[in-house]
């Protein structure tokens, strides 16, 4: 294993840096990198190249080509640039390519070169043109900062929710700053710029001059500045070849270094990792790469080719025409295990396992040594952790094997960390494959989360791999497989060269009844692409009718929507469609539609009962539903009319309707009611008191109570009240009056049809009905 640390370079006493190859690039670059605008997304993201013809004095007549490659150099897209001159390229956190044009318009492209949208950075930018632009990332998303020809800054902290902010003016600024960068402090974006020997910090309110503490004297200009991935650290490169490193707040200096190179570097980026021992900056010139930190010596590499640096969370990616490398500080666990002559428990365990494979008794000796120190658990953990940081699968395997070997001698070592590492590495190795080309490190992967990684695979249309990963990790279907299938389907509907039938069938075959897949969402996408027929076909597969309706309405298939709504049994949905239809169709057509849908009709009737009485009447009329029409007029007779004539008229209409409905009984009863109403009116006029709306029974009772026995008799005869009931009525009334004489007279007048004598007790008063 001696050779293993051959590419380790010490920086100072504490840290090692190593550089290893991720991919050998076989992209067929037509241009030199230095002639191109380059943008590479962090987290192993794609690389965009746009040959920059506008930089030269004479604008070339040929249109430039925008090319997008994966991190391994696989071509993803290539398109002729037809828009205006581009100043800067950059990737958003969603892996969308932002192209900032000279006129301040930002064009947004997808990973596959598909145009998404565009937005403008405002009038001021348009007038003064863009001098320089940066795309930066904050916790809210991705932002754009622009330096205009008038030396003013405009920025938007989140392009997803565009709010333009014009930064305050820098007093006395005559020329463009020598260098500038965006900072993000306390969730607010600032701009740091250098003009000659001065540094200015712009926030949204003010411009303040700042001085880094402990800056060496004699600086007349800053040539380059770099902010770390987490916005915590800042590095400044001066014209004296001096590098200052400190915190972004400019309150603390970390270290300084003098490289004695006065040429402005091409790029300068931070190279550190969360919890790293050393903070270092990588500076690149045309042919030289230098890693500097808090150490008297720097690490130097020679660059054979034109190279480009991409800062990452835990290191720096360096790609050129032929290779793609990763430079990072060696993580602690790896250092402990692989450092020459290391006696760390992990190193011993790895050794023990190797000896064990050789069937040597030394294995036992090493193992004892660890166990005597009681460090076996730690050893296993170290091996697991170190495996995560290895790029080569054979190294991962040997470390995991050692961990697994050590685990055998431990009683209760929880297996999840080991199992999870195996799973994670398998996923990582799969996405690092050059066909996929996402060279994530373990730390980046953990920071990114599996969900985002899956999204990125989906974005690259790598559906099968994404599904395999979901299945392998046993992610819940709704988050995993279903989601990916749905994305696939949404992509599928955009393939315009395939017929509607084929697409619908293909989608249904793949998706089947997978839970959590919303066919209506896919249909909505199809409709969005102008494929209405396909959308309708897809909706057929949607099991929840409720989901079908809103889209159908949107596509103006109201009648289909109505029958789907009815199928769903969701009355609310039916109402929604009905009201929609009502506005869409004329009254006649609307009623005709209703007629064919009995359930909708009955629901609409219910609705009308509370909301639109007149419509209800029309509906009944149309259906020749005379019975309901009769009931309707009965209700109306109570609701609308105060005057007796009006009420009688309404009742007459009701009676007519009842006759038409062949409901003789109801018709007669209604006629009786009219008669009674008129009579009651007369009684009120003649006798005073209240009679209206008393029942017939109560009218007679009231008459008796008022001593109008004759009239009562007459009324009873007119309305043919049966004898039995009349007797009860009289009895009750007379008892109430305590008119015992009349009662006695009455009892003797005729034979009682109700046999009240049976009940004759201490009182003649009939038993009061219960509950009263």
């Amino acid at each position, binding site marked *: 294993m001696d050779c293993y640390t051959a590419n380790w370079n010490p920086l100072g006493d504490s840290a090692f840096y190593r550089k290893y190859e991720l991919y050998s690039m076989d992209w067929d670059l037509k241009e030199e990198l230095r002639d191109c605008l380059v943008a590479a997304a962090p987290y192993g993201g794609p690389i965009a190249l746009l040959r920059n013809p506008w930089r030269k004095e004479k604008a070339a007549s040929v249109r430039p080509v925008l090319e997008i490659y994966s991190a391994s150099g696989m071509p993803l897209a290539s398109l002729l640039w037809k828009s205006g001159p581009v100043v800067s390229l950059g990737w958003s956190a969603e892996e969308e390519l932002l192209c900032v044009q000279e006129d301040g318009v930002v064009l947004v492209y997808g990973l596959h070169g598909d145009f998404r949208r565009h937005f403008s950075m405002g009038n001021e930018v348009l007038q003064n043109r863009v001098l320089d632009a940066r795309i930066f990332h904050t916790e809210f998303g991705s932002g754009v900062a622009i330096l205009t020809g008038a030396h003013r800054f405009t920025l938007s902290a989140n392009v997803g929710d565009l709010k333009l902010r014009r930064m305050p003016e820098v007093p006395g600024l005559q020329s463009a700053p020598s260098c500038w960068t965006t900072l993000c402090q306390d969730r607010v974006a600032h701009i740091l710029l250098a003009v000659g020997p001065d540094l200015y910090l712009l926030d949204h309110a003010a411009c303040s001059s700042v001085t880094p503490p402990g800056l060496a004297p004699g600086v007349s200009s800053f040539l380059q500045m770099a902010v770390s991935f987490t916005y915590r650290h800042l590095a400044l490169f001066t014209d004296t070849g001096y590098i200052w490193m400190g915190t972004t707040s400019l309150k603390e200096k970390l270290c300084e270094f003098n490289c004695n190179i006065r040429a402005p570097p091409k790029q300068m980026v931070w190279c550190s990792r969360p919890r790293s021992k050393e903070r270092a900056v990588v500076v690149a010139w045309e042919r030289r790469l230098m890693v500097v930190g808090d150490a008297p010596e720097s690490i130097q590499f020679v660059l054979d080719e034109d190279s480009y640096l991409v800062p990452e969370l835990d290191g720096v990616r360096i790609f050129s025409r032929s290779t793609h490398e990763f430079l990072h500080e060696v993580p602690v666990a790896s250092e402990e295990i692989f450092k020459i002559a290391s006696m760390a428990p992990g190193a011993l365990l790895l050794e023990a396992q190797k000896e064990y494979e050789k069937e040597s008794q030394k294995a036992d000796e090493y193992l004892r040594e660890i166990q005597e120190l009681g460090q076996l658990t730690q050893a296993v953990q170290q091996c697991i952790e170190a495996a995560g940081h290895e790029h080569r699968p054979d190294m991962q395997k040997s470390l995991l094997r050692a961990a697994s070997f050590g685990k055998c001698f431990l009683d209760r070592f929880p297996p999840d960390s080991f199992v999870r590492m195996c799973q994670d590495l398998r996923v990582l190795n799969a996405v690092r494959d050059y066909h996929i080309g996402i060279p994530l490190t373990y730390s980046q992967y953990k920071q990114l989360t599996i969900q985002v990684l899956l999204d990125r695979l989906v974005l690259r249309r790598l559906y099968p791999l994404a599904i395999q990963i979901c299945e392998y990790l046993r992610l819940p279907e709704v988050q995993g497989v279903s989601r990916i299938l749905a994305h696939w389907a949404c992509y599928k509907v955009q393939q315009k060269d395939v017929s509607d039938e084929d697409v619908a069938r293909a989608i249904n075959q793949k998706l089947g009844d997978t839970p959590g897949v919303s066919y209506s969402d896919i249909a909505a996408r199809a409709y969005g692409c102008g494929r209405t027929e396909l959308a309708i076909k897809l909706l057929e597969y949607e099991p929840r009718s409720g989901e079908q309706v809103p889209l159908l309405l949107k596509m103006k298939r109201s009648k289909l929507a109505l029958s789907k709504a009815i199928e769903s049994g969701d009355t609310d949905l039916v109402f929604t469609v009905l009201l929609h239809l009502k506005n869409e169709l004329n009254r006649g057509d609307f009623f005709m539609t209703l007629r064919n849908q009995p359930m909708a009709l009955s629901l609409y009737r219910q609705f009308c009962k509370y909301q639109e009485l007149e419509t209800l009447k029309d509906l009944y009329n149309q259906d020749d539903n005379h019975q309901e029409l009769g*009931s309707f007029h009965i*209700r109306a007779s*109570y609701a609308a009319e105060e005057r007796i004539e009006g009420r009688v008229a309404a009742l007459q209409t009701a009676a007519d309707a009842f006759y038409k409905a062949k409901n003789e*009984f109801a018709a007669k009863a*209604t006629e009786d009611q009219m008669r*009674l109403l008129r009579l009651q009116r007369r009684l009120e006029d003649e006798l005073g008191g209240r009679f209206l709306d008393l029942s017939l*029974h109560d009218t007679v009772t009231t008459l008796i109570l008022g001593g109008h026995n004759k009239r009562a008799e007459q009324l009873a005869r007119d*309305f043919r009240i049966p004898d039995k009931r009349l007797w009860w009525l009289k009895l009750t009334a007379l008892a109430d009056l305590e008119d015992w004489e009349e009662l006695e007279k009455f009892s003797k007048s005729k034979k009682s049809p109700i046999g009240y004598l049976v009940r004759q007790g201490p009182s003649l008063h009939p038993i009061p009905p219960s*509950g009263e």
Partner: protein
Amino acid sequence: MAAHLSYGRVNLNVLREAVRRELREFLDKCAGSKAIVWDEYLTGPFGLIAQYSLLKEHEVEKMFTLKGSRLPAADVKNIIFFVRPRLELMDIIAENVLSEDRRGPARDFHILFVPRRSLLCEQRLKDLGVLGSFIHREEYSLDLIPFDGDLLSMESEGAFKQVANMMIRMKREFTGSQNSIFPVFDNLLLLDRNVDLLTPLATQLTYEGLIDEIYGIQNSYVKLPPEKFAPKKQGDGGKDLPTEAKKLQLNSAEELYAEIRDKNFNAVGSVLSKKAKVISAAFEERHNAKTVGEIKQFVSQLPHMQAARGSLANHTSIAELIKDVTTSEDFFDKLTVEQEFMSGIDTDKVNSYVEECIAQKHPLIKVLRLVCLQSVCNSGLKQKVLDYYKREILQTYGYEHILTLHNLEKAGLLKPQLGGRNNYPTIRKTLRLWMDDVNEQNPTDISYVYSGYAPLSVRLAQLLSRPGWRSIEEVLRILPGPHFEERQPLPTGLQKKRQPGENRITLIFFLGGVTFAEIAALRFLSQLEDGGTEYVIATTKLMNGASWIESLMEKPF
């Protein structure tokens, strides 16, 4: 607090916890102090799942009832409307919100639809120009409220009218839910009230059923006349009798109630007197307690004994109240007529008791209930008889009731006999709906709940579990509505092995309501040793004949 929900074979407390959690989550979404404006109808059902204390914990400071014009003043940040999705309520809410906007500091408005969010209502709010005022518009699917260890209800009003809708909706929900959940129920029986119109019309004769018939149980609470519950103190002379109704909660959490609720009322008295003896004997124990240890043990049992004594006193009072009613002559007469109808005696003639009731203007609901019962027990009334009753009712109670009569006819409760055939005797005999030898004390058949009549719905359930409906196909053809059986195949991994002696569990869903007597009959079946099936009951509404008829009544003024 809700322990009685978890006693059953299926732990319904899980359901309660779930809805409580959902409520808390919603309340927490609206940060800051809150006032809740209640759709009055919802307060009852909500009382079953969350007390005021829970709301208070989540910064609910005020509660109002939803009504027109402006809201009462309240110094809170959020105003939340808890409403059913009904258009008329939306109008009120809009009025509230608009009048609120004109004065004072801006509030955050939210709306919680129970049980379902409605596009229609939101459209209405939009038309009224207030939709944008609401920050959160959500739904709270309080569909099935657990009432007891084996009883769930949707408590939706107007239940009977919407049976068809519900049926379809329920079906969708049941098929829509994924069956990767371990199945709790072996069978689901959906029973439409249309199949059995008879049972609710008869007077329930179980203890709980009678409480409901006489006083009405609302959301497991009953309000009773206070006189009998006055604390008996010597020398008080009944001077200040409480005037406010006594409100009691009735559920199986109360040990004594759990024991007697489903008994025939005639069997309740003996249980109560036995209990009284046991309790007083237990209190007597104190004289035997000699040593300190014995006294300590006695004292430790005291709270439980006192609770038991309180519960006994309450139920003795209730039983006395009920007894006053059941021993009245009129109650007896009514019951006799009901039983005559149900056993098929003289159902085709005008009944003289009903006539008398009309002549004496007994409550209309009582009259309608009897007439409907007669109609159902005769497969419809002869036209002449029907017209006579209708005429009598209209003349006595007023012509406006023609609308109510029409509603009853639409519901099939009141109808002319068609084709001159009376099917009821066939149904009665095949399904053994009338049992002459009823043991009310130690029942052997479900017919004890109506002292003779075995509820048709429960008999169907009983026959389904054993021997199966194939034996009664002929009757099923006569009964209204189609019937269907459906087997849901389960993935083999989910099929559980039944332990020997373990009963199957059937979820029986009454679409259109269920009575307490039916519940009692089902519980009786669950307890049968050789029954083989246990029932969990779900329904759209807990009901009785009176509340049912009332839901169909229409008063135009």
